[in-house]
């Protein structure tokens, strides 16, 4: 059981790599850097495979049937004695504890495998892609740090440790997006990513607190067990709040509406980063977290609905933007957002397994697409605009072919990976009871159509049609080195076969993927059942209700959509030359809106960040900051000093006064106060002795008068 009991080594290996880079990286050869960093990931991958393998043996029928494997290194937050307590919702005292503990179960196994696997491939790819960049060690250090964070996120046995990974991946995303820190756009994008993620993280934090408040623990095992115990009613407001807040976190991390804005900008980072972080792994953390909390979500139908609706809207929203984008990576970015929407749609309708399945297949084909795009960019010497590409197919054949496979997969063409996962989602949505869910299905369906269209548009614009690049660039076009193409091929293979794991029952398969995840996911039905509100029988009946025919019809429909999209793209872009026309451009308002991404960024800049001014007024956070600092300097300081209002008042009355205040020492309150009161007090003493005597006499008269006639 070496691998299983040393499961904590999996995140630690990349951490070690990162630490080595941090301390010694600058002095190391590139080869050493590659060896250390790639090596650590390879080791981690091997460890991961071993661990999953041992886990499946460990949890097979018998003693630990369907149990997660946990190992706790030490108590991270809080004390062992547990005397540091807090009061939970029901008034009990719960110990404040968070372990540095790791957990392996089917859900984390899946993530573990594809994260280490894809990560490994991308590391290898990067050795080629980044070969000529300065800061090579830095890049790999960050990548390893990212792997550490991501693996911590996946393997954590409690929410707090998960949050560590959660924030860690955000940080690495920030660092990697801003890798080219000379470019302001890159650092801007990095900041945006981090801050938007932080907003989500804030939600996550609060969600965590709600959970702790309700359950008295933040361990997944405890929470799940308590949630299943029936102590909490379905629709419990605090659990709804908790899940909604968790979902806010997921929105941030997984780029859902309205927090998706950072992801397209994140393409400023090097392409392998986009592939690893912003396509395959990090962005799916939100999905992971929601799936991980499924026991809670099931208790909160309102949250489920929210997740589903947000997911569907994101899917179609991002897809529509992707229709007209010209930057190859941006198209892929929006496509990622859209696909993530799909995943949330699945989660929201309760099809957790389908959602996870889509994450799994998506990881391969989307990573492949990005890496392919990277290869294209690499061959084009950095050109990313598809309007300047064309006819690359035969010049970089491996890239072309692998990317084509990925496109087929994402478009949902049978029997590529995407077909199975997407179909599962659509089917689950359709078969979900309640009219509104049908609406979501329509949205999903439309998205599928768009997906096929924009992906094939990308393919045709890039690899077919007339070459539109400059001669100089054309001259340099070359296929990428083996270190880059090999991962492409490997991923292409996965993009084909990954879906077969979940070959549906309706097509005569056994859907082993869902079966594998079965023990992790609760459904509303079995919650109800556990709470004793429905009988075993009813639950069984619902299970049996699979309408095989209906499923076939839907499959046909979605295939038709994919075909339609492909066809439209083929018709429009097959022969694209310079100055080709976009079909949507026929309706300029729509086209412009889409091209400018619904002006959302601008809106944010105006309203929320305050980066742009509306007239003279800065709005949003920066405006608030500006206002606050004005307030601080002028009002609070003034008020506290006791003379702020005097300053203000007199400054407006007379500019002379203003000048005097600003020029003199009088900017500050005390001095003004001093002058206001001190001079009269001193003028009282104007040097004439008889005046002094008069004051004395007057004082005496006053006293006598007061005391005698009072």
């Amino acid at each position: 059981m070496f691998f299983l009991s040393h499961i904590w080594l999996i995140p630690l290996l990349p951490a070690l790599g990162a630490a080595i880079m941090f301390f010694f990286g600058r002095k190391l050869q590139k080869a050493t850097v590659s060896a250390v960093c790639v090596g650590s990931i390879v080791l981690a991958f091997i460890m991961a495979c071993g661990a999953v393998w041992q886990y499946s043996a460990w949890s097979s029928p018998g003693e630990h049937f369907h149990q997660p494997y946990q190992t706790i290194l030490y108590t991270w937050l809080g004390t062992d004695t547990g005397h540091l307590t807090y009061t939970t919702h029901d008034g009990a005292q719960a110990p404040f504890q968070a372990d540095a503990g790791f957990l392996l179960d089917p859900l984390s196994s899946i993530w573990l495998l594809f994260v280490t696997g894809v990560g490994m491939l991308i590391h290898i790819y990067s050795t080629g892609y980044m070969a000529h960049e300065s800061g090579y060690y830095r890049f790999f250090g960050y990548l390893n740090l990212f792997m550490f964070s991501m693996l911590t996120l996946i393997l954590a046995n409690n929410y707090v440790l998960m949050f560590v990974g959660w924030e860690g991946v955000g940080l690495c995303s920030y660092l990697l997006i801003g890798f080219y820190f000379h470019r302001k756009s890159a650092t801007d994008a990095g900041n945006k990513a981090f801050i938007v993620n932080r907003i989500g993280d804030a939600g996550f934090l609060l969600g965590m607190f709600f959970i702790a408040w309700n359950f008295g623990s933040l361990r997944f095992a405890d929470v799940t067990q308590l949630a299943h115990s029936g102590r909490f009613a379905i629709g419990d407001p605090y659990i709804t709040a908790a899940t909604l807040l968790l979902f806010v976190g997921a929105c941030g991390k997984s780029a859902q509406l309205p927090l998706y804005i950072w992801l397209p900008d994140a393409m400023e980072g090097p392409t392998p980063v986009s592939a690893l972080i912003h396509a395959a792994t990090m962005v799916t953390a939100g999905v992971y977290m929601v799936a991980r909390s499924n026991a809670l979500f099931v208790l909160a139908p309102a949250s489920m609905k929210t997740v589903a609706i947000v997911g569907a809207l994101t899917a179609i929203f991002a897809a529509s933007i992707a229709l007209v984008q010209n930057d190859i990576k941006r198209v892929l970015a929006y496509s990622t957002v859209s696909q993530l929407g799909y995943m949330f749609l699945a989660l929201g309708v309760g099809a957790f397994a389908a959602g996870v399945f889509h994450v799994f297949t998506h990881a391969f084909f989307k990573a492949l697409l990005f890496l392919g795009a990277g290869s294209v960019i690499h061959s084009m010497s950095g050109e990313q605009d598809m309007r300047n590409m064309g006819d690359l197919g035969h010049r970089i054949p491996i890239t072309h072919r692998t990317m084509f496979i990925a496109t087929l997969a994402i478009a949902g063409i049978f029997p590529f990976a995407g077909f199975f996962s997407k179909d599962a989602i659509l089917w689950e949505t359709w078969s979900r009871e309640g009219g509104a869910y049908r609406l979501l299905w329509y949205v999903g369906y439309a998205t599928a159509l768009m997906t096929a269209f924009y992906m094939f548009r990308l393919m045709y614009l890039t690899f077919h049609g007339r070459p539109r690049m400059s001669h100089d660039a054309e001259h340099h076009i070359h296929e990428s080195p083996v270190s880059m193409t090999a991962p492409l091929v490997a991923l292409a293979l996965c993009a084909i076969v990954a879906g077969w794991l979940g070959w549906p029952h309706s097509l005569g398969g056994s859907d082993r993927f869902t079966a594998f995840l079965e023990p992790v996911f609760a459904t509303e039905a079995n919650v109800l059942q556990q709470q004793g509100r429905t009988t075993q029988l009813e639950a069984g009946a619902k299970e049996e209700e699979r309408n095989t025919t209906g499923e076939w019809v839907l499959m046909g429909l979605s295939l038709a959509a994919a075909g339609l999209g492909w066809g439209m793209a083929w018709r429009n872009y097959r022969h694209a030359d310079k100055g080709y026309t976009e079909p949507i451009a026929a309706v300029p308002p729509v086209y412009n809106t889409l091209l400018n991404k619904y002006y959302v960024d601008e809106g944010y800049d105006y309203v929320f960040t305050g980066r742009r001014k509306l007239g003279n007024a800065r709005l949003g956070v920066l405006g608030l900051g500006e206002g606050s600092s004005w307030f601080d300097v002028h009002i609070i300081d003034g008020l506290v000093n006791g003379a702020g209002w005097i300053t203000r008042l007199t400054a407006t009355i007379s500019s002379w006064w203003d000048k005097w205040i600003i020029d003199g020492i009088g900017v500050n309150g005390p001095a003004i106060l001093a002058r206001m009161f001190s001079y009269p007090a001193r003028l009282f003493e104007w040097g004439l002795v008889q005046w002094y005597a008069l004051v004395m006499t007057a004082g005496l008269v006053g006293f006598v008068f007061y005391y005698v006639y009072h």
Partner: protein
Amino acid sequence: MQNHILSIILFTPLVGALVLLFVPKENKDAIRWIANLFALGGLLVSLPLVPMFWSQMQSADRFKFIEGVPNNWIPSIGAGYVIGIDGISFLLIMLTTLLGWISILSSWTAIETRVKEYYVWFLILQTGMLGVFMALDFFLFFVFWEAMLVPMYLLIGIWGGPRKLYAAIKFFLYTLAGSVLMLLGILFLYFHHHALTGIYTFSLTALYETAPKIYSDPAYGPGIATLLFFAFFFAFAIKVPMFPFHTWLPDAHVEAPTAGSVILAGVLLKMGTYGFIRFSLPFFPDVLMHTKVRGWMITLSIIAIIYGALVSLMQKDMKKLVAYSSVSHLGFCTLGIFALTPLGLSGSVLQQINHGISTGALFLIVGILYERRHTREIAEYGGISNVMPVYATITMIMFLSSMGLPLLNGFVGEFTILQGTFMENWRWGAWAVPGVVLAAAYLLWLYQRVFFGPVTNPKNEKLHDLTPREVLTFVPLLIMAFWIGLYPKPFFEILEQPVNQIVQDVRHPRSGAAVNAALQATPPATAAVTASSTRGKN
């Protein structure tokens, strides 16, 4: 040694100051060496305290290593040289000795004029701060509290920036204004104690017994108790500083020399929070538990968190930015305190330590740049990470620590505070959370403007990276940041007992009957006095 460890820690810096007095002031290097030696010595003598405290941690005594007996200093008024520590003060003392050493080390090249004086005042300041954290006699506490203002005032005033006079005076006046009111409060408690027991004493443990009774005392009642609470509140709130008493802070920070800022942010601000924990909470439990009072405290804390962060966002001066960020961070600390839960309280203490480490480091960071370029305008910089990569890396880590990234120290404190507060009232926790987001915003934006991009200003091209001495100043801070981030358990264990005790005091103050019973149990001589003078005035 065991019995006098605290005194040794307390007076080592003072001895250093005295020794320095006899070094000719022209011999600057000798002065620097001696000062550093004593600062390091101060740290070293405090290190044995760690195992010693650890071994005594589980003892039931509230305060450990008590030295001196009550009233041994000025018997005629009942003031004594009594010092002792519990977990909270232990941590703050260790922080003080560490930061003291670092600040003095960091001043090696920064201070060129009047070197001798500088170190003398600094070492005196060090003793003053340690005294505040050790005193178990209210009077002794007050003396240290005030005495420590003077060296700080001079440090700002002599070695500070262009508006140093203004800043120094403002600092001094604000703090003094708060503390004199506290003095009145102390005197009231003193008489109240006398009225109940017939004994005039400033002993903290004695006042713990009687002060909470003011609230339910028919002769005084809640009104007076609240008034007293506010007398203390102003002193501590100004020191912390809580919104809206914070305006001295940016000025003082900006004008102070680097080491001064480090100490100011790292230790001096903690005196306010420490005061709340040590005095306000056990003295006025009923007042604090009053919804309105607590509501105000919490509101002010939350405003400080958000407001401080917002103001930071728009600062053009790096040091000012860091200063305002302190307001925000200290908002978390006070929030944790007034949540009045063990969790909030221990988080608050931890966060105070964290703030000392992170913000201390941030001021060092700004100071290093200032020393090279003599400006702190953010606009003057850009692309620094090109020329100073090591510096940029350390800065990044410290920024991350400051914004509360997990596995670094800041997160542990903030998380604990937030959870503690949330469990008390989820709305409070919810309001405080945006501060976390804003912290990321202002720090990252600062980082971007200073470190990223190409080097646009030709003056920045020739900057040299950190010297080994400068790196050395950061090493302990980095180690602490990672230690607390990765393995905070020892800290929680140290805090466990005192925070539970305090919360116990606040939430379940001993009933009047219990106190009376305790008084009855005292020797007959005291009892007789009690009988004769209790309620003498009524």
